[in-house]
């Protein structure tokens, strides 16, 4: 039975790059445990001889020619939702603090 500790929640939050408040950490500890306990009913299902399904309509490797198509978009237009742009590139903060 999955019962998440505070450390488990903090580890997940770190992996997912989520800053959580103390209240959220406590809340998620019980909520996520409850949800995981619910989905754990699958552990008892017999799936011997079965393979996992990833794609339901049976399509595999849909290929196309590797050629440039012009959809008429301008770089500036595609960047207009980006918080910080410099010389038509996305500007981010320095990686090492």
């Amino acid at each position, binding site marked *: 039975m999955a019962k998440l500790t505070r450390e488990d929640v903090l580890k997940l939050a770190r992996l997912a790059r989520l800053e959580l408040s103390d209240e959220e950490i406590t809340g*998620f500890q019980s909520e*996520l445990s409850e949800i995981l306990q619910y989905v754990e009913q699958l552990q008892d299902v017999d799936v011997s001889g*079965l393979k996992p*399904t*990833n794609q339901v309509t049976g399509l595999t490797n849909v290929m196309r020619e590797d050629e440039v198509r012009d959809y008429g978009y301008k770089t500036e237009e595609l960047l207009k939702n980006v*918080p910080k742009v410099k010389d038509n590139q996305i500007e981010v903060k320095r990686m090492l603090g």
Partner: protein
Amino acid sequence: MSQWLPIADIAAKVSTGELKATDLVEQALKTIDEKKEFDAIIATTEERARERAQKVDAGEIKGHLAGVPFIAKDNFLTFGAETTAASNMLRGFVAPYQATAIEKLEAEGAICVAKANLDAYAHGASTENSDFFTTKNPHDKTRVPGGSSGGSAAAVVLDMAPFAIGTDTGGSIRQPASFSGCVGYKPTYGLVSRSGVVAMASSTDVIGPLTRTVEDTALILDVMAGRDDLDSTTIEADKAGYAKLDGSLKGKKVGIIREHMGESLDPKIIAVIESSVKKLEAAGAEVTEISLPSLPMALAVYYILCPAEVSSNLGRYDGQRFPYSYAEAKDLDDSYFGSRGRGFGKEAKRRIMIGTYVLSSGYYDAYYKKAQTVRTKLINEFSEAFKQVDFLVGPVAPTTAFKIGQNANNPLQMYLADIMTVAVNLVGNPAISLPAGMVDGLPVGLQLMAPQKADRELLELAKSTEELLV
């Protein structure tokens, strides 16, 4: 009674000049304004809608949907208003291009007039997870309209436009259609391109219409369906199209799903479903009971696979590429944590956390891979069932619309609202919710399901069924 004619009639009358697209757009905008207390709409696209209406009236834009106003769930990229997916993360996002579905509707002359509310990123069953506001049920303002396409369903029932479009990942079109009282259609996986739609769980996400009648739904599907180079999961549409339906119930084999008629269901809802099935039988359908033994596991499968895919699809909202960014961040890592921690609402975070857990090393086999394998078992059981019957029938949801706030502190209880809708998303089959009756003043939907790619046959059955239920 609705103020709107059948969609085909509206388009025909606009094409002959008997109706003016500009009047239809004003009529839709007026209704949206008059019914704004239901909070179904996030924003109108009125300026662009008026311009397009003028072009339709001038004969510059023609087609099967000429001048027909519609409302798009706000996770469709559209011009004329922001596209937010009801999330703070995307507040201020101006789409640089439109969703393929929108482009196809517009190419036939339809006019988008507004963007409808939803649970943020489509995570929810009530619109209560919208980062902005909760939509009210058209039949009772103290109740939810269902979700996540709750704004779209409410908008159709409130008669704001002849149709709306939504997305269905685990029931998000059918369940609000059932709660609010309209037709809601989930096509076969891949039948409608998802290009330009904010992704939730890519292995189950589909796009579909919400309308007043099956005929309207069929016409909209006909326009939206088919292959699209911008979505490699798309499949070919039926060569006969979907717009012209015939067929009768005589000799059709319909299976009642035993696992969905159990004790957990409100007896009054069972009564509505049973009376609907009797009508099908009286009209000549051969009704039998069908068992899909793994069906009770579908929700558990879904709540592993869906959060896993959500955690991946929401990875792009990192504070660098989309509007919301934590301004006080010291460095890049701080910007990721701060932007995601502050920008995402509680349900998005919850799903990211679950998804991260089931995909993390050490747990992947026990959760994610196991769920994908039980999914195969479900697919096999559905295939077996469709060897015995042409269609499956059952309820859409275990309850009618619940009170706003009732499940707010119990996420698992909220997830249970999807228990009868998620299975077809996992197996990729089409399904429809039809208004079947009322229980204590609230609508109840009847769900019909068909084999993959039998969308046309399903719509034909639904049309014959609808005539019996009205």
